[in-house]
Structures are given as structure tokens and as C-alpha cells.
């Protein structure tokens, strides 16, 4: 037979995810070493301090939960720009349940509130065929007004309550590896290259961590397992890739889409509950601060995969934490970090002869480098902006060959098969 028709010999079977894990580990190590170098050069010790790391995780979690929410929805083929709104409802219901029955009730309340509006989004987009963006934007707008109204009905007049906040909710407990804090703290204080950095990282990761944070981090591998290792996950992904094919095999397309969007809402709501029970101890108006949108961005740059979105969320959380802790000095050091990282990416693109991305990366790297070199600190007005700008630039340029689910955002009508 011929080259074209000949059935190719089976390529060696190897799990692509193992490669992915290895690559992720290499990148993580590279990023970490870069940070250590930058800390050594600039003396901005906050870059790898335990406090920064600890805060970064806390800040990354709500973003990551929103991103996971986006993952479930978009893998089922429904674009969910309403994550922000679902998160807002999550915060409100968490506040409502939390001040009455405690923090874990708040968590359940947040999940339920988010899921409820996930259901609304599913009803609109799946059953009624409303454009996904329009439905999502509507949910975002409604969330702001509705929670204010609900607050005035349920919170006004109670202790600490008002039209823009709930009564206090007890915080969820925090745990750590016993005895790890002391020696690591000492080591970190020495400011030795790499060693102290590693100590800071470990101390940040293993001391004073909220129980809900641990739960949220575990949700990332859990989501991977559910979506890629179970029949449910396969069916859910199939309706996002090719609902026609799925329906022809008897997959209940509408049900799977509903499941994806409701889970999506629940995760966004959990993200809202996190803000209430780990940070603020109450529901506050504008508490989410756009984290739903950032989560959506992290998911897209994470290429619709759990590992990718976790990395994107972590980057957002990290830069945000730097800004909050150390302000302009650390943010200034961040510019050098970004410049080095972009230069590495530029070299990688150059090695594989992808000249246009290489050029873009090089220009961005030089840009950040020049700004770092000619300024002593980032102007205060720009400090809040820079972390997001850096994150977006890095993510946008690092992410290559993004592939969204093939039928994402498309309306599907039963019986269109064939």
C-alpha cells in the first residue's frame, strides 16, 4: 500500500500530561530562580518573602476559583462572562448565611448563590438560546443592583449591617505545619541567594494557611481528574467540542451544558465565599473587584486547562500581593523580573524560528528593562496598575497556540444533527 493510505504504525504511547507536568515544573523552577536573581540584584526582599507568598496564595485563590468556574462552563461550550456576577452573588449569600450560621455555612451559601445564577445563565443560553455574552453581562449588571437591594432588605438595621455590607461573619480557621515557621524564618532572614528565597517560599506555603485555601487548591487537580478521567468529564467536554457528535451518541447535550454552567456558578460563588470568610469577614459591596473577569482571563491564557489557569491565577495573585505589601519598590523590581522573563521567552521563540513572536517578546522585554533602568520607583498612581499590566503582558506573550473548545460560545439546538 501507499504512504497515504498505509495505516501509520502506532506512535509510542505516552501520556501527554506527564510531559506537561515536567514542562510546568521546569518553568516554575526557572521563574523562581529568576525571582531570586532579581531579589539579589534589587534588594527588594519582599519578592520572595513568606508574607508575599502567603498573601499571593490568598489573592490567587478567588481568581483561580473563578477561572475554574470558567473552565467548566466553557468546556461545556458556554462562554461565561457572568462569572463576576455569580461571584458577587456568592459573596452576598455567603454573608447572609455566614452571619447567622457561621463560616462553613457561608461557604455553602456562596456555592448555592453562585450556582443559582449559574442556573439562570444556563436557562438563558442553553434553553432560550440567548447570546452568551449578553446573558453574562446581564447577570453582572443585575448582581450589583440585586445584592444592594437584598442587603437593604436583610442586612440594614442589624449589627454592623447596612445597604453595602453584611453583619460580621467569623473567619475560617488557619493551619500550618507545626514548627516549620521558626527555622525557616531564621533562614529567610539571612537573605542568602536561593536558600533564603526557598525558605521564604516554603514558609509562605506551609504556615498560617486558611483551610478553605487548602480546599480550593485541591480543587485544581480534582477538576482535572473530573474532566479528563471520568465519563462525566468526557461527556461535558464533548458538548463543548462537538455537540452534534455528542448528541449523535446519545449524550444529553442540554443536561451536560446545564451541569457545566451550574458547576461554573458554584465555583465562582465559592470564590465569593472565600473573600467573605477568609479576608473581610463580611459581605461588602464591590468586594469582588473584577476578580471574576480576571479569572476568565487567567483561564483563557491558561488555555482552558486546570494547570494553565492555576499558573495564570498564581501570577495575578503574586503581583497583586507585591503591590499590597511593599508598594512601589517591589513593583519596581517586578519590572526587571518581567523583562528577564520576557527575554527568556523571546529566546525560546527565536530558537524555534518563530520570528514575529520573538520580536514582540524582545521589544516588550527591552521596554520593561528600559523603564526599570531609567526610573527609581514606579509612580504611586501607577503602582496599582503595574501588576496587572505585567501579568497581562507576560500571559499574553507566553501563551501560544491557545485552543478554545471548538463549539465554545455557539448556540446549539437539539436535532440540528446531520
Amino acid at each position: 500500500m501507499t504512504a497515504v493510505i498505509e495505516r501509520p504504525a502506532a506512535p509510542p504511547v505516552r501520556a501527554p500530561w506527564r510531559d506537561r507536568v515536567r514542562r510546568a515544573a521546569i518553568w516554575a523552577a526557572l521563574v523562581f530562580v529568576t525571582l531570586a536573581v532579581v531579589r539579589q540584584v534589587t534588594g527588594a526582599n519582599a519578592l520572595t518573602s513568606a508574607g508575599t507568598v502567603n498573601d499571593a496564595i490568598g489573592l490567587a485563590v478567588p481568581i483561580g476559583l473563578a477561572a475554574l468556574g470558567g473552565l467548566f462552563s466553557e468546556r461545556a461550550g458556554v462562554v461565561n462572562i457572568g462569572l463576576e456576577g455569580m461571584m458577587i452573588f456568592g459573596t452576598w449569600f455567603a454573608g447572609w448565611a455566614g452571619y447567622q450560621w457561621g463560616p462553613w455555612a457561608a461557604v455553602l451559601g456562596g456555592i448555592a448563590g453562585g450556582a443559582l445564577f449559574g442556573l439562570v445563565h444556563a436557562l438563558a443560553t442553553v434553553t432560550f438560546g440567548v447570546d452568551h455574552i449578553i446573558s453574562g453581562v446581564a447577570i453582572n449588571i443585575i448582581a450589583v443592583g440585586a445584592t444592594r437591594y437584598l442587603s437593604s432588605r436583610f442586612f440594614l438595621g442589624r449589627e454592623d449591617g447596612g445597604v453595602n455590607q453584611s453583619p460580621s461573619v467569623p473567619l475560617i480557621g488557619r493551619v500550618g505545619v507545626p514548627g516549620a515557621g521558626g527555622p525557616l524564618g531564621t533562614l529567610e532572614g539571612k537573605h542568602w541567594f536561593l536558600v533564603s528565597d526557598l525558605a521564604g517560599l516554603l514558609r509562605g506555603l506551609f504556615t498560617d494557611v486558611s483551610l478553605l485555601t487548602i480546599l480550593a487548591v485541591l480543587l485544581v487537580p480534582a477538576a482535572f481528574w473530573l474532566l479528563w478521567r471520568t465519563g462525566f468529564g468526557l461527556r461535558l467536554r464533548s458538548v463543548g467540542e462537538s455537540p452534534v457528535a455528542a448528541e449523535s451518541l446519545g449524550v444529553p447535550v442540554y443536561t451536560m451544558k446545564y451541569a457545566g454552567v451550574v458547576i461554573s456558578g458554584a465555583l465562582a460563588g465559592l470564590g465569593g465565599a472565600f473573600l467573605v470568610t477568609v479576608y473581610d469577614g463580611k459581605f461588602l459591596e464591590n468586594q469582588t473587584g473584577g476578580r471574576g473577569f480576571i479569572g476568565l482571563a487567567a483561564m483563557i491564557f491558561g488555555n482552558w486547562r486546570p494547570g494553565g489557569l492555576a499558573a495564570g491565577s498564581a501570577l495575578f495573585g503574586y503581583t497583586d500581593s507585591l503591590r499590597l505589601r511593599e508598594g512601589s519598590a517591589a513593583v519596581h523590581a517586578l519590572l526587571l523580573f518581567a523583562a528577564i522573563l520576557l527575554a527568556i521567552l523571546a529566546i525560546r521563540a527565536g530558537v524555534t524560528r518563530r520570528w514575529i513572536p520573538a520580536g514582540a517578546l524582545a521589544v516588550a522585554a527591552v521596554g520593561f528593562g528600559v523603564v526599570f533602568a531609567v526610573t527609581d520607583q514606579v509612580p504611586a498612581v501607577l503602582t496599582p496598575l503595574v501588576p496587572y499590566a505585567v501579568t497581562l503582558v507576560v500571559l499574553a506573550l507566553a501563551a501560544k497556540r491557545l485552543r478554545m473548545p471548538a463549539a465554545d460560545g455557539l448556540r446549539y439546538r437539539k436535532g440540528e444533527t446531520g
Partner: protein
Amino acid sequence: MTADPTAPGPPAVELRGITKTFPGVVANHDVDLEVRAGEVHAVCGENGAGKSTLMKILYGMQRPDSGTIAVRGEQVKFRSPADAIKSGIGMVHQHFMLADNLTVLENVVLGLPGRFDPAAARTRIGELSARYGLGVDPDRLVEQLGVGERQRIEILKVLYRGARVIILDEPTAVLVPQEVDELFGNLAGLRAEGLTVLFISHKLDEVIRVADRITVLRQGTTVTTVEAGSVTTAQLAHLMVGGDLPTPETRESTVRDEVTLGVRDLSVRSDAGRDLLSGVGLSIRAGEVVGIAGVEGNGQAELVEALLGTRPIATGAVTLAGEDITAWPTSRRREAGIGYIPEDRQRQGLLLTQPLWENRILGHQTRPPSSRGVFISRRGARKDTERIVAEFGVKTPGVDVPAFALSGGNQQKLVVGRELSGSPKLLVAAHPTRGVDVGAQALIWDKLRDARAAGLAVLLVSADLEELLGLSDTLKVMLRGRIVATLDPATVTPAELGEYMTGVATQEATP
């Protein structure tokens, strides 16, 4: 239609008095079909004869208005494909029902109840693949596979679900001759294992070759069922259309001297830097049809897109009637007289929800009669659409109906009519008669021949070898982005052509 007394047991599938109407159309009217267990049974008829609707009813995708379905003698009512699958009926769709970004294994087990157990599924796929000679690797992504392999996965999907009756909807439409042979080998294997195959086609020679019995549909109803051994192609065609089969034979050469299209050293690269086209050179003279043969995905689509300016080229030059158009944008090329019949009329050729007259304007936005200055001329476009409808025999209640209301053949006639209006110099025709019935096919072939006689240069990309051999003055074969052979359609046989297309035979290309 009487049951054969020698047939062992009840028929595998028996449809009686099936009627199905859609708003304004009777798709099936009192259709009877009896398929014996263990036979290859063909259902043939023109497009629009109701084959697809009938099969969708049998597969539970649509419910009949009246009539009964019996499987192995038992009356059944299918509410969804899942019900049909439970009764042991499986369907291989004409347009593959595969998710590209999932692996073969995932596509196969999708939708099955029970626990997702990749290891067990892998073993079972291996067994089935070996038993029926399908040669399927469960761990590859579907998007990496060729057409023939995808089809085998579809068959495997059906077998995996334990189907005893397999419906194949126009399975050969996308295959080259060698792949067709392989498919028919697979079908023989299935029959030998006691499975029943329902084979839907309008290619009569194939039907006679592969089937035991043939049921002919015409205008939504059953004409008759015949033994495959007892009929000829001509007789079948007569039953199908009530007339003779058209042939694409061109009469005499109309090739003139002046070169309309010149392509020199044309290369196109993918985003990843891979060569999709390398060093393609060809020229088409006025009144000449140059046919491009090749297995799909060997650069034909890229060549077409490069000529139209919708895909950037890496190297090379393109001239139209002596003018260098390499740097021209698509609109300017169209205005200069390039017509284009796209490969997929529904996705690239028409706005399905818009009326016919608006579809007439597409690609002619800047030219009379569809425009006056910067404005669209509604009247001019409507009038010219009416002309196309009349000249090309487009069956439609009017020019205001949306394009989706037309059958595939009529949509295609509209597209061809549009692309031949405004006296183009060059027509780029990608699969101009794919999936249209023989009546529309004959008409499109006639119109192409007339235009060729009037001096039109045609680049014809087609997977239908009969069409290529019949219409072309010169035949070029593409393989892996290169032109690997230049052949004379008068002397080459389909088998030889197939060998060039798959790289078995080679020719030192000296263009």
C-alpha cells in the same frame, strides 16, 4: 415487496408506510424498506429523494408522522439515537460525527453508560480493530487523522456499541478509489461476521458493486427493490431519475492561446512554518479547464485560497491575463474577473439566513448589476437573481426566500450562477458538484462547458475522478503540496490517477 420465504427469520429492519413532512415539503411519503439480516442493502436516489430523512428516522433522529418500524420482527418506537443504538442500529454519518480535539478512544466511548475505563476500552478497541481489519490507534487525536481513518473510527464507534445493523450515509463521497476499495473490503468483513449493512449512495456503480439488494427512492417514495446482480447502471439510473445518467464528457477542445492564469513557484507556509504548498507552477489558457486531482488535504485548498488572495503566500507570483496580481487583495482580484465556487457552499458560499438576492450580491458588491456607486442596487440584484434562477433552473418559490430553504443542489446552482455572472476570466471551482444530485450535476457541467467554450479559464479542484477526467483539458496531480504529475485526461484511467494521487506512481514533473 413480499418477504422472501427463504430468508431465515424476520428481516433485520422493516419500515412500512413511513411518511414525514416538514413545513412545505414532503420528505418521505409512504416509504417501504425491508432489509434482510446479514445482507448489504443499498438505498439509492437523487439528493432530495428522501434517503437521508429515511435514515434519520430509522436512527431515531427524527420521528415519522406515520408508519411503523420493526427491528428483527419487533415493533419499535425510537425517540432518540440512544433508543436506536439500544436496538442494535448504528449510523456512520456522511459528515463525520467526531470531536477533533478528543482522542480516538474518547470519541469511541463517548456517551456510553457506565464507568469510564480507558484501559478496558483500549483493549476492546484493539480487539474490534483487529477482528474487522480497521487498523485504529486509540490514543491519537482525531484531528491528526485522514478521511479514511476517520471513517473507520466511525465504523468502530458503531461496532463498539454492539450494533448489528450499520447505516452508512454516502460513505464514499470523500474517499479516493483505493480507500473505497478498502472500505468495501471492510464491509465484506462485516457481512461475513453476520452484520447487516445499509448503504446509502447515489453512485450507481458502487451500489451495484457492493450491495446484495438495492432499494430505489424517487421524490420521497419507494420506486422498487431489486437484486443487485440483475440490474445495470443504466437501468438503475432510469429508476432513479426517470432518465439517463449524465456524463461529464467534454466535446472538443476550446483551448485558446492567451494565458489567463499564470502561477510561478508558489509556496505557502503554515503558521508553524511547515510547507503547505511548495513551488507550484501552472498556467491556464483561455477556454481551458485544468483539473487538480489529489487526496484531500494535499494543498488543494491552500492553492485555491492563495489564488483568491485569502491566504498569504511565502514565495511566488500569480498573473491574471498578463497582469501581476500577487499583491492584490481579494476584492480587487474578484473585480478583475476571478469567480470562485467554494468547497463548502453553506459555510463559504452563502449566507443561509439571507434571501437569494442578497446572496447574489456576495462577491459582487462593487459591480453592476448589484451595485450603483456605493449603494447596493436592490432592484438590479433581484432582477439578476431572477435571471440566474431561470437560467440555472433553481427550484425556488422566489428570490426572497432565505438560502437555507433550498436543497443542496439548488443552492449550488445559485452559487455557480452567481460566479459565472459578470463574465469572469477565471473560475476557481472547488468541488463544484459535491453532494448534489445528478440532475443539478448535469446542469452545472453543461454550464461550465458553455463558459469554457466562451473562453473562460477554469481551475477545477475535485474529488470526483469522473468529473475531473470528463471536464478537464489537462490534469495535474497534487501530493503533499506539490504538483507531482501532469496527465492527459483522455488517456489516463482512474486507477492510474489513484496511483499518482497516493504516490505509488511518480512522474518527473517538468512543468
